[in-house]
C-alpha cells in the first residue's frame, strides 16, 4: 500500500445552486489521525460522504486507498469503516445483535463470536451486551458505534463528528482509542468542531464554507499563523471590543470571560502600547500582553476572508 490513504483533486459537490464542497485538494497520509476542522455547514460531512462513495462529486475526483470513489465505491466500502454523525445503529437491537448484524454484512470469517467479544472488551461494552442501543447514554452509543465501525478492522476509518454528543470524559477515552487504532496502522479521518480535539490530530485541514482554507500539522499551523495574539485583562467594559475593532490592524476580538483575545496583523508596530493607549483614552485601564496563538486563532485568521463582515 502506498503512503497516501486519500488524495482528492478539486473535489466539489453542489446541492442545487449551493456549493457545499468547493474545489478541495487533499493528501492524507496513511496511518495517521487527520482532522477536518470547521463550523457546521463548512462541508465536512459532505466531504466525508463523498470519500465513502455515498455522494458523487459534482466536479473533481478522489482516490481512497488507491481506488476511485466513483468507479470503485463497492471495493472501498469493504475496506472502510464509517461512523455517521448521527447514531446509526439500530436502537431496538442490543449491543450483541447490532455487532452481529454488522459482522454478517462485512462477511467476517472465523470465530465471529470471539471477535465480537473482543470488540466488547475493547470498547467496554460487556455490561451492555444485552441492552438495547436505544436505552444507552451518548457515550455508550458512541462506544458501540465505534466498535461497529472497527469490527471488520478497516484500513481507513471515517468519523463524522464522533464526539458531538458525549461528555468530556468519554471524549478523552474515545481519543485514547483512536490513537490505539492509529498505532495498529489504521488511517483515521475525523471531523470536529472542537479545537482541543483538532489539536490532537497529526494533520489538520481547516474548512470554511466548503473551501480548504488551511492545512498542516497543528504545530505548523500555529507557527505559521499570520497574526500576533494579545490578551487584554481588565477591559470588561462592553465598549472595549468596539474601540479595538476600529484600529485598522486589528482583525479579531473575542471575549473570553473577563479577558479579550485580540488578533493583530503580524508585526504591527507598537500594537501593545497603541491598544493600551486607545483604551486609556476612553477611561479603561487594562493590561495588554502578547500570548501564543491557539488553533482557534488559526481558524479565525484562516477564515478571515470568508467570514469577515458578518
Amino acid at each position, binding site marked *: 500500500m502506498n503512503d497516501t490513504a486519500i488524495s482528492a483533486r478539486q473535489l466539489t459537490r453542489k446541492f442545487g445552486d449551493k456549493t457545499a464542497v468547493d474545489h478541495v485538494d487533499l493528501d492524507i497520509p496513511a496511518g495517521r489521525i487527520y482532522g477536518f476542522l470547521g463550523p457546521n455547514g463548512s462541508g465536512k460531512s459532505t466531504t466525508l*460522504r463523498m470519500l*465513502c*462513495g*455515498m*455522494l*458523487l462529486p459534482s466536479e473533481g475526483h478522489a482516490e481512497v486507498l488507491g481506488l476511485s470513489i466513483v468507479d470503485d*465505491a*463497492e471495493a472501498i*466500502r*469493504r475496506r*472502510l469503516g*464509517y461512523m*455517521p454523525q*448521527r*447514531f*446509526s*445503529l*439500530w*436502537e*431496538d*437491537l442490543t449491543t450483541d*445483535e447490532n455487532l*452481529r*448484524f*454488522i459482522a*454478517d*454484512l*462485512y*462477511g467476517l470469517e472465523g470465530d465471529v463470536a470471539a471477535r465480537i467479544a473482543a470488540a466488547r472488551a475493547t470498547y467496554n461494552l460487556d455490561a451492555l451486551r444485552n441492552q438495547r442501543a436505544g436505552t444507552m447514554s451518548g457515550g455508550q452509543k458512541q462506544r458501540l458505534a465505534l466498535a461497529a465501525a472497527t469490527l471488520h478492522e478497516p484500513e481507513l476509518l471515517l468519523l463524522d463528528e464522533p464526539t458531538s454528543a458525549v461528555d468530556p470524559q468519554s471524549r478523552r477515552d474515545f481519543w485514547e482509542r483512536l490513537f490505539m487504532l492509529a498505532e495498529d496502522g489504521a488511517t483515521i479521518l475525523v471531523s470536529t468542531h472542537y479545537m482541543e480535539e483538532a489539536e490532537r490530530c497529526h494533520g489538520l485541514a481547516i474548512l470554511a464554507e466548503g473551501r480548504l482554507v488551511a492545512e498542516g500539522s497543528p504545530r505548523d499551523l500555529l507557527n505559521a499563523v499570520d497574526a500576533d495574539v494579545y490578551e487584554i485583562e481588565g477591559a470588561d467594559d462592553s465598549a472595549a471590543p468596539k474601540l479595538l475593532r476600529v484600529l485598522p490592524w486589528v482583525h479579531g476580538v473575542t471575549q473570553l470571560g473577563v479577558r479579550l483575545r485580540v488578533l493583530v496583523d503580524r508585526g504591527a508596530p507598537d500594537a501593545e502600547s497603541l491598544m493600551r493607549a486607545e483604551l486609556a483614552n476612553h477611561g479603561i485601564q487594562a493590561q495588554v500582553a502578547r500570548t501564543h496563538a491557539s488553533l482557534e486563532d488559526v481558524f479565525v485568521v484562516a477564515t478571515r476572508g470568508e467570514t469577515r463582515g458578518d
Partner: protein
Amino acid sequence: MATEPGRQGRLRASLRRLGAVARKEVRQLARDRVTFGMIVGVPLMQILLFGYAINFDVRHLATVVHDQANSSMSREFIAQLSATQVLRVDYTTDSGAEVDRLMREGRASMAVIIPPDFERRLQSDTRPVAQILVDGSQPSLAGVASGLAAIPLVTRHGAGPYSGGKRMTPRRVEIRTLYNPEKRTAVQIVPALIGVILTMTMVVFTAGAIVRERERGNLELLIATPLGRLELMVGKLLPFVAIGLIQTTIILLVGSALFNVPVVGNVLHLYVAALLFIAATLGLGLFVSTLAKTQFQAFQLAFLTLLPSILLSGFMFPFEGMPVAAQWIAELLPLTHFNVILRGIVLRGADLPELWPQLAKLAVFLVLMLSVAVARFKKRLD
C-alpha cells in the same frame, strides 16, 4: 457455474447479508408491539368489520305486515317471505295508517301489504299478488329489498313462482333460490378481503420499513457497508412475505369459521396466487419507499394506492359497471386481477391454469415494480 469457488463464495456472502437483513427485520418487528399487533389485528378487525358491519346483503329487516286477506294462504306467504331471512316480521297491523306511521318513524324498513283478494290474484289475476314497501332512504337497502319485491311483480309477466299455479305449489320455495346463497355478502367479501388487507398492510409495512431506516439514519450506515441494494431489498421483503401468508391464513380461517366461506378450490393454488400477489404488492411498497422522504409521506402514498384498489378493483363495485377510464386504471391495479383469481379459486373452485391471464398480469406488475424500485434505490444519498 458453481464449480468456481470465488463465485460460490460471493453467493454465500451475499446470502449471508440477505439473511442478516431478514433476521434483523424480524427481530425489530417482534419488538415493535404496535406493528406486531397490526399484523394479526388488522386482518382480524377488517374481516369482522367487513363481515358483520359492512353487510351489503341486508338481513332481518324490520317489517310490518298488513294482511288484509288473513287467510291460511296469505299467512303461508308471509312465512315464506320470513324464511328468506331478508325480513323479520316485527309488527302486524290492520290499518294502513299504522303502516305509514311505522315506516315514517323508521321503526319498519319494509312493509308487506296483502290485498283481500290475495288468493284470487294468485290463481288467475295478472295484477300483483301483494305489495312490498321499502324504505328507499336507506340506499343499500332499496336494492336488496327490490329483489324481494320483484317476486310478486314478476307475476305480471307470468313468469314468477306465483303465476298460474292453482294453489301454493312447492315452487314457492323458489323465493329462496332467487336469493341464492351465492349472493350473501360474506361470500363475496371474504375472498376479496384477502387482497384488500394484503394491499393495505404490505404497501404500508414495506414502504414504512425502508423509509424508517432512512429517517432514523440507519440507511446512511447501511450504504457505507458492502450490503448490496438487491440484498437489502429482498432481505427486508422476505419477512413481509411470511407476514402476508400469515394474514391470508387468518382471513381464510376466520372466513370459514365465522362466515361459513370455505375454500372450494385448491388451497395450495390459492397460496401460490397469494404469494405472487404479495410479491407484487411488496414491489409497489418498495416503489413507494423510493418516492417518500418521511414515514408520514410513505403512509400517505400507500393510502393513495389503497383507495383506488378498494374502489376500482371490483371489491366494492362490479368491474363491468365502471366507466371505461376507471376500468383502465383498474387494469393497472394488482388487486383487480387478484380479486378475479380469489373469487375463482375460493368460490368457483377454479384451478390456477384457468386463471393464467390474471397470474401473468400480476407477474408483469411485479417485475415492473421491482425493476423501477431497484433502479430508483441508489446506494447513494443523492
